[in-house]
């Protein structure tokens, strides 16, 4: 028997009470379908309010009207016309900005000279809203696709460069020292240690730059384009066609979601070791 004799005044004779559970730290867990159910609920309420005439359709068209507008856009071919123009601008601008951002980010992360020069320039130029440069870019590059693509590329470049050099900085130094202790050449260290080590930050940067590209393409198309989702949204707004306007917004949202899914898939494939 490990029980000791009760001390004087002991509570041994009182009934035992269970210790109250006080929590295991804040660990918010998300349910798989919770978000979709909430979204469906909001759309249902929105539709019900529209159908009941509680909301003026000019100010807020019902979801069914927006769906119909998207369907008509798709059937008429206008959707693909606008969407392809936007996708081309986003695709080319994002690729150019990302390629330059990755190259400059790695240079800043790996070279003392590039760091001292690069960080100064990036700090000075990053806060500028890139859309403010569009008129200047039109002056330099003409009124075609180039200034819009250049605006997107510039916006993507700075965010990418920052996330890449932050990612390179975050690679544990002990791994680089380990590689050096085995006389591993610089190029192999970059390829086998720094690149995979910085990849989580780079992919996180892609999420940001995808949003930046979407924001800039819409802004640029609103300023100077005949085709593109931004131009379409602006035109619909000018004509008070709010169902069309919101159709454009929904298409942008779906595009953003799709890009997020692609990056999520890339993270799952490339960062499975985490």
């Amino acid at each position, binding site marked *: 028997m490990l029980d000791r004799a009760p001390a004087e005044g002991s509570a041994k004779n009182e009934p035992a009470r269970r210790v109250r559970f006080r929590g295991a730290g804040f660990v918010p867990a998300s349910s798989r379908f919770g978000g979709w159910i909430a979204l469906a609920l909001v759309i249902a309420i929105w539709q019900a309010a529209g159908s009941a005439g509680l909301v003026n359709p000019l100010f807020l068209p019902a979801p069914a009207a927006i769906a119909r507008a998207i369907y008509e856009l798709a059937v008429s071919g206008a959707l693909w016309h606008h969407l392809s123009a936007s996708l081309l601008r986003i695709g080319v601008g994002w690729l150019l900005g990302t390629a330059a951002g990755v190259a400059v980010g790695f240079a800043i992360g790996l070279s003392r000279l590039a760091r001292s020069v690069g960080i100064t320039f990036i700090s000075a130029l990053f806060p500028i809203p890139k859309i403010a440069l569009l008129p200047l870019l039109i002056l330099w590059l003409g009124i075609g696709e180039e200034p819009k693509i250049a605006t997107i590329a510039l916006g993507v470049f700075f965010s990418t460069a920052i996330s890449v050099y932050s990612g390179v900085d975050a690679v544990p130094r002990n791994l680089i020292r380990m590689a050096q*202790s085995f006389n591993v*050449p610089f190029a192999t260290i970059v390829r086998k240690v720094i690149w995979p080590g910085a990849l989580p930050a780079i992919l996180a940067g892609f999420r940001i730059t995808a949003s930046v590209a979407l924001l800039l393409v819409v802004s640029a198309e609103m300023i100077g384009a005949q085709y593109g989702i931004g131009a379409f949204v602006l035109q619909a707004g000018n004509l008070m066609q709010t169902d069309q306007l919101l159709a454009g917004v929904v298409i942008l949202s779906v595009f953003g979601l799709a890009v997020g899914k692609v990056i999520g898939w890339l993270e799952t494939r490339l960062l499975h*070791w985490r």
Partner: protein
Amino acid sequence: MESERYLMDLIANHISHRFGDLAVLDDVSFTVSAGEVVAIVGPSGCGKSTLLSILGGLLQPTSGAPELRGAPPADSLNPLTFVFQDFALLPWATVEENVEFPLLHTQLSAAQRRALVDDALRRTGLTDFRTTYPKQLSGGMRQRVGISRALAVKPAILLMDEPLSALDSQTRELLMEDFVHLLADGGMGAVYVTHNLEEAARLADRIVVLSRRPGRIREVVTVPMTRAARGETAAREKLLALQNQIWSLIRNEAIDAEREVQHA
């Protein structure tokens, strides 16, 4: 050809080092003869790990130099090879990819690399874990991967920086047995940095005792028995006496170092 492994000495030649105004090491000189195991002990902050980094070419000393005398074994791909305290494993690589990593830039063919990796994994009991990622392994198994990676390049001298300090006591004991086994034939020398005097006494042929910062050599203690004999019950008393002797050398400085850390 095993005698070829006895050809290279590592020499600490009047090594001093400063980090800015802070003197860390002061005129440290000793020689690690081929096949010899030298432990470096001393109070916290005395520059043990700094000295090891300098010996292994990962840090430029302020004055003095690490030197090698003689030729490394012909088959050695990295004569001075580190085993790190924090294992330093690539988290995105499997066990076998980690072990193969230091071989990738060599002239070896894929088949030769594979043979070396297989041998290193077998010697450390990791054959069944070759496709496992580091995050799936315990601390002890991770350090085994670090040791396996070191063995794959056939080192002449292992530079071990507190390799067991991040592990629990049972795992430490098991890995210590592995170290004793690996270093048993004298084919490979080692510099073993530790603050654990028992580890030093169990493993080393000689123990270099450093003073408090700036680290100077206070004494070099020779362990008067073979490593094989140290596992016997009769040897325990002698080893304990040796540990006490070393502890008496550094105790007061260890207390001062501890107070210094608390006031820092």
